[in-house]
């Protein structure tokens, strides 16, 4: 598969039972598709989970991904989310190395500008929580590089369509 395309977002409602993540991940591996990130969590319907998957690839690849996902029996519904019509969020936890007091206040200023929060403080470090689009998090991480990132955990994005459009299974 060509890897020249842009990152695309797919949302899927899947049965909330063991083995479903395995079959989805397995299909991606077998068909040579690449998962950039995947988040899975519960939904407003308790027997369904929602997967938000970002995939890198061209149109044709994405079309195959959606069709192949649809073939999986435990995948109930698959939708492509169009980037211009969705709200996406990602959460990152970043541990920054700031033993120096001057640097520390600079970092805290940055956190405020980016509307993040400091969630843990030690003499050597600050742990920061930041939420936003992946671009925003990338920008923040770029700033933090100068101080030294000790540890980083990103959740991968989760997304919803704007407005009343929704992916739902009506019982």
């Amino acid at each position, binding site marked *: 598969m060509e890897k020249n395309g842009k990152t695309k977002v797919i949302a899927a409602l899947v049965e909330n039972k063991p*083995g479903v993540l395995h079959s989805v991940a397995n299909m991606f591996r077998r068909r040579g598709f690449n998962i950039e990130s995947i988040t899975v969590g519960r939904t407003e319907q308790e027997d369904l989970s929602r997967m938000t998957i970002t995939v890198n690839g061209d149109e044709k690849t994405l079309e195959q991904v959606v069709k192949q996902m*649809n*073939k999986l029996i435990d995948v109930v519904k698959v939708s492509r989310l169009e980037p211009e019509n969705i709200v996406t969020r990602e959460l990152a936890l970043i541990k920054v190395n700031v033993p120096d007091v001057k640097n520390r206040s600079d970092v805290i200023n940055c956190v405020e500008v980016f509307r993040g929060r400091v969630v843990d403080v030690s003499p050597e470090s600050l742990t920061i929580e930041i939420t936003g689009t992946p671009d925003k998090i990338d920008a923040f991480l770029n700033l933090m590089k100068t101080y030294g990132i000790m540890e980083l955990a990103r959740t991968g994005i989760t997304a919803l369509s704007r407005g009343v459009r929704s992916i739902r299974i009506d019982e």
Partner: protein
Amino acid sequence: MTKMSGAKALLESLERQNVDVIFGILGGALLPIYDHFGKSKIRHILCRHEQGAAHAADGYARASGKAGVCMATSGPGATNLVTGIANAYMDSSPLIALTGQVPSGGVNTSYMIGRDAFQEADIIGITTPITKHNFQLRAAAEIPKTVQTAFYIATTGRPGPVLIDIPKNVQTEVEEIDFSNGIQIRGYKPTTNPHPLQIRKAAEVLAEAERPIILAGGGVITSNASPELLQMSELLMAPVATTFMGKGSFPETHPLSLGSIGMHGNPVANKLLCEADALLAVGTRFSDRSTGNLDSFCAPAKKIHVDIDSAEIGKNIDVDIPIVADAKEALKALHERLAKQLKKKGTSAWTKRVKEAKEQLNPPAKSTKELKPKALLQQLRKLLPENAIVTTEVGQNQMWAALYFNALKPRTFISSGGLGTMGFGFPASIGAKVACPDRPVVDIAGDGSFRMTEHELGTSVTEDIPVIVIVLNNSVLGMVAQWQRMFYKGRYSAVKLGSVPDFVKLAEAYGALGLRARSIAEFAKAVKTALKSDVTTVIDVPISMEEDVTPMVPPGCGINKQVGDY
């Protein structure tokens, strides 16, 4: 609601699906189920290797159109099924595989799954990429619904194998069992009816085409759409090429039949496909062995692609008019629409071209002293009734059969097309014979493939399932030997099998009938004897190891660039 054990509930659930036979091998993790076979209406056929059981069930499914069922114990029993399951998956065959599993809990057993217990294998993980779906049972009460769902998934839409893994404690536990209908799968809704707009567009293209051609794949056989295919072809006066898997969907003696396409396709089919101006492809996935180089495949034609699996559309080739539907429904709808606007066409420049190409490119077999596969297979067709079922092994034997043995009816030509599994044909012939006991079943084999599952002679003799095996015996792995001759300057590497065993003696050792044929006359005599025999007959036919399957499309070339004579 009735109180019973999981083992009993399983067999009863299978009976309710009209299962009449299971091919299997028992083992420790299946003892509770096997303890019930004596009381069940279901016939159990004890195979000699689980791979044979899976292929036999697959052969049964392809010959009958019903799901075939195989069963194996946990661990190695289950993993031995894997080749058979993968084979069924690639060829979209409705196979139900039942596997025993170590206990997941229970009164007298501890939880063993995940603890590397004796004969434990993660068969769910192993078969996820080669099944349409799989289940691991957690409780006896789940059995009826799971079995119903498994059969529904396996046999509808694009069929495929479904595996049910049954921990031993689930077989023994006694619970209230409810057999009422309970299929609920919200994530599975196959589209069977074609979209009217797409049918309209397709009809326009076909009505205007001067050189229409139909390509029929295995999907036509699966959906029992052969009558509709014939009707469509005769309305449009469009010649029909089949894929290898589609062989039998259209009578190959029909004036509009071109034979099968592909690497070892009939040159008429390969050539005319590249001359057509409209292609109606039905129930095919455009496999690489069928299409050859994609750039030249059917290049000038407007392409209509009918498939029940939407993921097949646009996967390998780009098409102009996609139609997601069952082959039968789509052909019916198309015919209905076209019959209104078209008068039945007569002969045209295109039908003349078909006739002339067939005369020119399909010359009759030369009569030679030496026994050649082409003459042998054409002779075999004359010796067998129309409804005889032929299975093949994989390799040269298979491609010779594709080229020279005319299939006349659907479900009479059974072969491993997608996975290319050597050793498939013989156990598949046993399964086909069980499905159709009144019809002759013949496995066209090579010696290399037959060696891989020859032990199933034991099954066919002891279970009284008489089939005929024709071993085209060149004492080499013929197809790879041919490639070494053609593309590796004749450097043979690891292809010579030697002339052991003596297949006549091997057959006799199993209590089967062994015959040898060294000429067409001897071959005809042997087949006639075999057709009358009430035990399995192995006919050993020594042929030259230098014999090539031609014509052939060299790898990477377009299908109209074949080399060698038909």
